[in-house]
């Protein structure tokens, strides 16, 4: 690798001064927000992952929930999430005009065949957080108690942490971010992967982690939604809404994307 850059390459972002943290009933919640990685660390990550990281890679960012007495924790980082991206190219998407482009160029450059480093460049991940310590999550039927989360309890701690984002070479957007809110008795973390490949597909993959402090109960829900672009566009065409604005907003898109995968798991920490 030769990124001759006259520029100085810091190997690591400065310390932990960007950490925000709060402790509540034996649970310590930490978030860290730093700039995107520089050339050196990007190259390191490239080596570790075997794929090129997204254009905007917040590799130092973090959202973590720790149970202080048991040492159990669940954390969300870009590196772990990207490790779940398909690195083989088997599930590779094609941009909408790929066919037209391929046909036109083939006449002239049949010898340029090699697809450079194929992988899932939409950075679609089914990342559900990295856990450490015991016990492990077990499948459950217990849903996250939405009613409790709809109450306007005071929010003691809130953060929104970007993990990565890629503009898919101006063919849409892929982003993974983590939101967390801590209320007096419970917390909710939402790690959301949102991907729109223009004229091809929408994906929303949500991992929610709910903690009830008093009982030490942790529920994790994973929910993947997906729909073809054209289907969503047609559905929205009937409304009077600003279609492009909705297509940028995963919150408003969820209703248009059917659930394709869902799982629930639970752990009780003592």
């Amino acid at each position, binding site marked *: 690798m030769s990124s001759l850059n006259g520029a100085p390459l810091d190997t690591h972002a400065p310390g932990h001064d960007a950490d925000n943290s709060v402790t509540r009933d034996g649970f310590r919640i930490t978030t860290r927000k730093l700039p995107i990685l520089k050339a050196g660390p990007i190259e390191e990550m490239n080596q570790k992952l075997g794929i090129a990281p997204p254009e905007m890679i917040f590799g130092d960012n973090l959202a973590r929930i720790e149970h202080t007495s048991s040492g159990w924790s669940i954390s969300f980082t870009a590196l772990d999430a990207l490790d779940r991206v398909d690195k083989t190219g088997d599930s590779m998407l094609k*941009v909408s005009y790929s066919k037209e*482009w391929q046909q036109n160029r083939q006449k002239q450059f049949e010898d340029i065949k090699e697809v450079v480093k194929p992988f899932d460049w939409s950075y679609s991940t089914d990342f559900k957080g990295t856990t450490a310590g015991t016990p492990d999550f077990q499948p459950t039927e217990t849903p996250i108690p939405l009613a409790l989360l709809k109450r306007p309890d005071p929010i003691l701690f809130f953060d929104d942490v970007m993990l990565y984002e890629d503009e898919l070479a101006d063919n849409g957007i892929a982003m993974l971010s983590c939101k967390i809110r801590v209320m007096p008795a419970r917390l909710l973390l939402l790690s959301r992967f949102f991907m729109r490949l223009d004229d091809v597909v929408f994906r929303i993959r949500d991992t929610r982690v709910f903690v009830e402090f008093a009982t030490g109960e942790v529920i994790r829900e994973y929910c993947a939604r997906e729909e073809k672009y054209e289907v969503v566009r047609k559905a929205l065409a009937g409304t009077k809404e600003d279609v*492009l604005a909705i297509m940028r907003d995963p919150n408003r898109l969820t209703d248009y994307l059917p659930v394709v995968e869902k799982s629930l798991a639970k752990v009780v920490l003592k």
Partner: protein
Amino acid sequence: MSIGGSDLDKAIQQLRSCRPIPENQVRELCYKARELLIEEGNVVGVDAPVTICGDIHGQFHDLMELFRVGGDVPDTNYLFMGDFVDRGFYSLESFLLLLCLKVRYPDRITLIRGNHESRQITTVYGFYDECLRKYGSANVWRYCCEVFDYLALGALVTGAATSLSPTDGPLAENTNLDALPSQDEEIEIETLNAAGEIMYRYARNSDSQSSNTSQPNSNPASSSPVQTPSRVGAAGTGATSSANGSSRNDTGAVLCVHGGLSPLIDTIDKIRLLDRKQEVPHEGAMCDLLWSDPDEIDGWGLSPRGAGFLFGADIVKCFNHKNDLSLIARAHQLVMEGFKEMFESTIVTVWSAPNYCYRCGNVAAILELGEDGSNAGYVRRSNGDQGGGGGGWVLGSNVGPNGQATNSNRRLSSVLGESLQQRSRDGPGRRYRVFEAAPQDSRGMPAKKPVADYFL
């Protein structure tokens, strides 16, 4: 109403304070700009000195910071490599200001087209919505898109000096004095911070290329921003064949283009022959020039996305040799450090949108090329004429200039031979000015702190 003379100056003043000008003035301005741009070739000739800038993306306040750091128009000559609009909140003000400056000082500022200067892309990535929001109709967006179609596809900078005249700016904090080249050495690269302080400096024969590439990673102990590579042997024995003499005028031209090269384009003259006055097509040479990226590969490759080309070092070196270029400057890709030289400094990415999208935390850079003072009577070479005369063979075809079939990926280097790398021209002296985003209080930006919400 017309937008000549003092009206134009008024418009510039208004736009400098980030206030849009009335719709009828935009129409007039776009009309004037089109008249001007239509006279420009697909590849605009530009004389050094010039300051080359990358993507702006509607970050108006950072564009003002760029002018503060790089000098104001018309005192400094500028060349912007496209992507003026989209993403940021002030695409309209940014683009219209640049356009006003172009109309007011046509010889002082050059604008070339980026992939975002397109109807299709601006409808998706913000500029269209912004025009609609600020004017209540799409008229202004339409006028601007018509201008986009007339923007040049590239620029050719000639007459750049091989070495920098040293700035006597103070050293930046942390700069290691011992690491800087001595006064009598020829300076190839210098990087200054926004305050004009020297961050680091490389001498021409200091083998900066190779050692610099590996050093920062392999030497994490050094936290100093100054990374001055050690010299390999005595002057003149290094990789470059040139003597360490004082003023030479053998620097080739610098091609500036938004994205990169195309397998359809082997000479700059081929760019000149394109019909550019149209929406950016989805394929073909014009598309490639605005979209392709350099990558660590041999020859040409296909982007995994299923459309678009990637090109390797051999392609760049061949193209530069054939067209008598010493450097290709391009934009298009975000780089954390603001600029990134690749392939032994035969191509550089310049990125001029600091803290991109208001959240990346990256720095931005502009690239200054000095004027070759020793070269007063210099007649501009007609680049692209060289080497292109023979077969007019197409890069990427299997047949070389001699009619011999050559091996796919390596074909170019094998056809032209290894010797060309020795004969390649010295790059121009390059001064990078690195700057950060304008202070938060200078803009009407939303607060950085996220607002708590009851998300589910």
